[in-house]
């Protein structure tokens, strides 16, 4: 297999090829490093490349396979992750100036689980400063770029993850999602991204943005690849007391079954308010494809999502302001103004309002499920309602216009984090400029298996997720 053939494999295919001895981990890792060196600078998607450690891990993985040791589900597969997962002894800067020299002593539980499953780590991926931007904005280290068109944003805050997986540098990546930070880069880079149910995946050893909303999840090329990653990282963790003790299903084994009988809900209100005409057309076509698979599509009601967004915003800004208060006092000049201005409102809310926002979470989540998900298995929503914006549109021009574009990007995603529900972003085509478009499927708590199965069924009859940007070919 040559480099291009190797890197065009999906994550599960690459792991299976290593397990069968068709390719070695060293070959895959060398190819990933070569691509990181070639494409990484063009996309500004790496915070750090650890070639020496990665090749050592790959040699070890190959040795274990030769010795007949049991191979994990990710044995020998090169990955890289958002630069906010702690790895003992390595700098984890979180896209910030403030933590540019921070070296944690511990390693994030999810990274430990990936290592135990045999994954090879080739480095840390660039991100928005402290995970604070839906576009990937980073004033300190430059913006990561979209492999489909480097003049456009890759989506954020897991911007490097989106760019590196889409450019076929790595087979998959972990990111975090507080208001859409996995689903935005998935949608804008033509990838599949899963935000799990809150508590499904441990957050121990992950730099928080807002602990009531943060979720860790996979970004990869297909639902199958996300299923394999989620099965490895999900489950109870003693280091994260909020992590759920629910058994972890065999997500990949549950992918089969197709879409026949799947009940899909399409909201009557809110979600289509800002959707551009060309994106609406592609969303309609994705619904047609689901119908053709045997899914039943019906219109459903949703509660007041503007209120849900306000609640999410209040909780996020109060919790972020709590985390950042000391640095805001002593190092305020080390924040980009766009980031600081999103944290500071959190200093102004009364404690009673914050408690009210948390206390309303259970009744509003119940109402959402009763209204929108009572008679359907999944909701079909836009992921990002507008075409992928250019870097120019999200950084220059009148601040009001920039704020409007940034606010619109998260219109369909951030409320889902307040509700804590799982959601998967699925590629659904390309806009007139050749940039990716996606829909998201949202389900009841802990319905990840159902979301993955629906997305997988769709990906059996479409090939949007298989397309790769010209620069990656």
């Amino acid at each position, binding site marked *: 297999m040559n480099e291009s053939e190797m890197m065009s494999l999906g994550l599960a295919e690459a792991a299976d090829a290593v397990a069968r001895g068709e390719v070695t981990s060293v070959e895959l890792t060398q190819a990933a490093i070569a691509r990181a060196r070639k494409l990484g600078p063009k996309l500004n998607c790496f915070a750090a490349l650890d070639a020496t450690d990665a090749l050592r891990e790959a040699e070890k993985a190959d040795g274990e396979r030769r010795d007949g040791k049991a191979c994990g589900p990710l044995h020998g597969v090169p990955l890289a992750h958002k630069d906010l997962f702690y790895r003992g002894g390595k700098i984890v800067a979180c896209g910030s100036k403030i933590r540019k020299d921070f070296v944690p002593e511990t390693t994030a539980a999810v990274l430990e689980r990936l290592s135990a499953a045999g994954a090879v780590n080739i480095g840390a991926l660039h991100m928005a400063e402290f995970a604070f931007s839906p576009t990937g904005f980073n004033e300190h280290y430059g913006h990561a770029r979209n492999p489909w068109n480097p003049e456009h944003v890759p989506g954020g805050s897991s911007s490097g993850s989106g760019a590196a997986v889409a450019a076929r540098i790595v087979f998959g990546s972990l990111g975090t999602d507080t208001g859409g930070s996995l689903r935005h880069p998935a949608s804008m880079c033509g990838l599949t991204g899963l935000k799990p149910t809150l508590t499904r995946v441990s957050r121990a050893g992950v730099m928080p943005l807002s602990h009531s909303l943060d979720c860790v999840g996979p970004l990869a090329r297909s639902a199958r690849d996300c299923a394999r990653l989620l099965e490895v990282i999900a489950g109870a963790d003693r280091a994260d007391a*909020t992590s759920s003790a629910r058994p972890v299903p065999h997500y990949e084994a549950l992918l089969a079954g197709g879409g026949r009988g799947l009940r899909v809900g399409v909201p009557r209100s809110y979600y289509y308010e800002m959707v551009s005409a060309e994106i609406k057309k592609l969303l309609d076509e994705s619904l047609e494809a689901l119908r053709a698979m045997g899914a039943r599509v019906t219109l459903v009601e949703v509660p007041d999502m503007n209120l849900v967004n306000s609640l999410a915003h209040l909780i996020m800004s109060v919790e972020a302001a709590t985390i950042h208060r000391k640095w805001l006092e002593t190092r305020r000049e080390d924040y980009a103004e766009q980031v600081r201005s999103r944290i*500071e*409102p959190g200093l*102004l809310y009364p404690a009673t309002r914050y408690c009210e926002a948390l*206390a*309303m979470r259970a009744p509003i989540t119940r109402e959402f499920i009763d209204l929108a998900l009572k008679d359907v298995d999944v909701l079909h929503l836009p992921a990002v309602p507008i075409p992928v914006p250019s870097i120019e549109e999200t950084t220059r021009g009148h601040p009001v216009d920039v704020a409007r574009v940034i606010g619109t990007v998260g219109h369909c995603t951030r409320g889902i984090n307040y509700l804590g529900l799982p959601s998967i972003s699925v590629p659904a085509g390309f806009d007139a400029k050749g940039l990716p478009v996606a829909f998201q499927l949202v389900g009841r708590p802990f319905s990840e298996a159902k979301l993955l199965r629906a997305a997988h069924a769709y990906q059996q009859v479409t090939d949007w997720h298989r397309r790769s940007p010209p620069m990656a070919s």
Partner: protein
Amino acid sequence: MSKSLLDQIAAELQAVPLSEADAARAAALAGPTNRTVREAADAWLRFEDEPAVYLACLRDQADDR
């Protein structure tokens, strides 16, 4: 600018050095959300609602089909 007692208490609690412009911008963002959430709490919340109930809600509403 004259300061009310409440302003001074708030400044004491949050020693973040906001300029007038920063404070005005933050207040402009926080103000509408503050009102929206307060009105919703007045309409929604019952005495027995509390944040700790939420994780139980996720478990109760879980997809087991």
